[in-house]
C-alpha cells in the first residue's frame, strides 16, 4: 500500500503546485496574496488537524506557536541577517522545543481543561511582545525584509514569489504529514486517541506519543508563523491573537477533523468567504460600518450552517456525495473516524462522579 500511496501523494502535491503556479501567473497580485494566505493557513491547520483529529488533543493556542515561529524568523533575519531558509528551519526547531514543553504540560490534561490551558496560552504569549517592547517591538511589532531573488528579474512581483515560497513549504509539510500519519507513529496516535489503556497495554508509550503530537503540530504552526512573517513583512502581536488560534481549530473541524485534504478545504473557506462577502458588500455600496461587519456575520453563519449540514466536515460531505454516485467503496479512506477528542463526551456517559457535589447548586 505504501508503495502506491507515496507516489500518489507526491503526484497530488505536484498537481497542486502546478495549479498554484498557473493561478499565480494569471491572477492579480491580490489573489497572489490570498494564495499565500491559504498556504500559511493550511500549514498550521494541517498540524492542528493531526493533533486534534489523530491524537485526540485539542489546542486553542496554536496561534502562540505561530507567534514563536514568526518572531524567531523576524529576529534572526533582523539581527543576524540570516537567509530565509535558515530562519525557517530555525523557527521549526524553536517551535518544536516550545511544543515539547507545552506537550509535556498538556499530557495530563483532557478535554475542556486542555482547551482552557491552551486558550490562555494563546492569549498570554502575544502579551509578552507588549511587555518586552525593546526586544520584541511592542504592539508595532518587527519589520521583516523579504525580497524576490535577483534572477527572477527586477519586475517580478514580490507577492507572486511569496505565494510560491509559502505554497512549496505548505506542500512539503502536507506530504511529510501524510506519510507520518500512516506510519507507526500515526497508528499510535489513533490508538491513544481511541483508548489510552488499550494502547498502553499494547506497548505504546502513551505520554511520549501525546507529546510527540504536540511537537509535530507546533512545528507546523511555527513554519506557518514564519511564512506569515514574510508574507505580511511584519510580525506583531495583533497578527497572532486568540482569534487566529480559534480560526485554526475552526478550519480543521469545518474541513473535516483528522483529514489533510480537509485542512485545505477549511483554510480555503476561512480565507475566501470573508473576502468574497466584503467584495459583494462594497459593490452594493453599503456604508462602511455595515459593510465591514456583514462579512463577519456571514462568516459566523457559514460556520454554523456548514457544521449543521456536514457534521463530518467538508471532506466528509464530499465523500458522502462521492459514495452517492459510486456506491460504497471499502477501499477509500473516509474521515469517518473524525474522532472524539474528549472535549465533550456524550451527555449520558457524562458525570459519573457527581455524588458528593449534588447539593452545591
Amino acid at each position, binding site marked *: 500500500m505504501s508503495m502506491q500511496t507515496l507516489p500518489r501523494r507526491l503526484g497530488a502535491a505536484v498537481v497542486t503546485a502546478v495549479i498554484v503556479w498557473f493561478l499565480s501567473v494569471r491572477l492579480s497580485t491580490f489573489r497572489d496574496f490570498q494564495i499565500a494566505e491559504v498556504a500559511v493557513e493550511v500549514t498550521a491547520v494541517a498540524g492542528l488537524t493531526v493533533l486534534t483529529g489523530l491524537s485526540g488533543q485539542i489546542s486553542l493556542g496554536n496561534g502562540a506557536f505561530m507567534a514563536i515561529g514568526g518572531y524567531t524568523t523576524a529576529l534572526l533575519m533582523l539581527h543576524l541577517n540570516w537567509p530565509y531558509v535558515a530562519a525557517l528551519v530555525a523557527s521549526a526547531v524553536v517551535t518544536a522545543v516550545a511544543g515539547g514543553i507545552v506537550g509535556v*504540560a498538556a499530557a495530563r490534561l483532557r478535554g475542556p481543561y486542555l482547551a482552557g490551558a491552551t486558550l490562555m496560552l494563546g492569549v498570554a504569549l502575544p502579551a509578552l511582545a507588549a511587555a518586552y517592547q525593546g526586544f520584541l517591538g511592542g504592539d508595532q511589532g518587527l519589520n521583516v525584509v523579504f525580497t524576490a531573488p535577483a534572477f527572477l528579474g527586477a519586475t517580478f512581483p514580490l507577492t507572486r514569489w511569496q505565494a510560491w515560497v509559502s505554497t512549496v513549504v505548505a506542500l512539503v509539510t502536507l506530504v511529510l504529514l501524510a506519510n507520518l500519519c500512516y506510519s507507526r507513529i500515526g497508528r499510535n496516535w489513533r490508538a491513544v486517541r481511541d483508548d489510552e489503556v488499550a494502547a498502553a497495554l499494547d506497548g505504546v508509550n502513551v505520554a511520549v506519543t501525546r507529546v510527540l503530537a504536540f511537537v509535530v503540530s507546533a512545528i507546523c504552526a511555527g513554519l506557518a508563523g514564519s511564512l506569515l512573517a514574510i508574507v505580511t513583512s511584519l510580525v506583531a502581536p495583533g497578527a497572532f491573537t486568540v482569534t487566529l488560534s480559534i480560526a485554526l481549530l475552526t478550519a480543521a473541524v469545518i474541513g473535516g477533523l483528522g483529514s489533510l485534504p480537509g485542512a485545505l478545504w477549511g483554510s480555503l473557506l476561512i480565507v475566501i468567504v470573508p473576502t468574497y462577502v466584503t467584495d459583494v458588500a462594497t459593490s452594493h455600496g453599503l456604508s462602511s460600518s455595515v459593510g465591514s461587519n456583514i462579512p*463577519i456575520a456571514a462568516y459566523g453563519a457559514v460556520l454554523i450552517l456548514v457544521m449543521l449540514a456536514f457534521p463530518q466536515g467538508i471532506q466528509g460531505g464530499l465523500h458522502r456525495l462521492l459514495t452517492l454516485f459510486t456506491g460504497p467503496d471499502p477501499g477509500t479512506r473516509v474521515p469517518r473516524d473524525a474522532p472524539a477528542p474528549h472535549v465533550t463526551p456524550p451527555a449520558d456517559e457524562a458525570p459519573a*462522579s457527581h455524588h458528593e457535589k449534588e447539593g452545591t447548586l
Partner: protein
Amino acid sequence: MVEFLQFTLSGVSFGMIYAAVALSLVLIWRGTRLLNYAQGGMAMITTYIAIEVIYHTGSYWAGFAVALVAGILLGAVCQLTIIRPTMNKPPLNGVIVTIGLLVLLEGLAGIFFGGQFRSFPTAFSVTGLRVGGTPLGVSRYDIFVAVAVLAATLALALAFRYTSAGLRMRAAAFNATIARLSGIRVARVLTVGWALAGLLGALAGVLVSPSTFLYPNSMDTIFVYGFTAAVIGGLDSPAGAVTGGLLLGLALSYAGGYLPSGASLVPVVALGILVLVLMARPDGLFSATKVRRV
C-alpha cells in the same frame, strides 16, 4: 495598606463577574457537556439591548430587567435552533457551532449598533466610599455588583436544591439516560439550563460594561477569564466556578497593581495560575475523584 485594600476590593468586584460567566459555563457544561464559546457574545448582545432600552426609557432598571429576560430568551432560542441538532454529532461540532454563533453575534452587533465604544450607565454612584475620611477604594456600585452576583448564585443554588425543577436538572446532568427513563424530559431540561446560563451571562454583561465600555468584542476578555475561572474551579462544580472567579479576580488585580509592567502581564499571570492549578489538579480545584473506565 489602603492600596492593598483597594486592589482586594476591585479584585473581588471583577472576580464576581468572572464567577458569573464561569457559573453560566458550568451550567451548560453539566447539562450538555459543551463549552459555550458564545457566552460572552450573547452577553454582549443583551447588554446592547439594555443600553437601547435605557436610552429610550431613561430607566436603568428597565434596561436591567429587559437584559435579563433577553438573556433567558436568547439562551433558550440558541439551544433549540442550533445547539440541539449537534447533540448527537462529533463533540467538536457543538464547539464550532458556538464559535460560529459568537462570530455571527459580533457581526450583527457591528451592523446594528456600530463598532464604536459606548459607555454604559451604572445603577449607583461609582465614587469611592469613605469611612471617617479614609477611602475604602470601593463604591456603592462595586457592592451592588458583588451582591447581585451572590444573590443570583444563591437563588440558583436554592432552586437546584429545593425545587422539583432543580431536582430534574440535577438528575438530567447526573445521568441523562436514567433521567429519561424516569420520565424527565431531558431535552427540555437542557433548554432550561441554557436559558439560565443566558440569564447569568446577561447579568455579567450589564454589571461589567460600565468598567469596560460596550463594543462588539467587549466581552471577549471577560469570557476568556470566566472560562479560565471555570477551568480552575473544575467545570462540574458551581462552587468551584465562584471560587475560581474570585481567586482569578484577586490574583489579576494584585498582578495589575503591583507588577512593574503589570497591565500587559496580566494574561501571563493568569496563564501561570492556570498551569499551576492544573498541574496539581488536572480537573480543577473542586474535581471529584475520577473513575477511569477500561
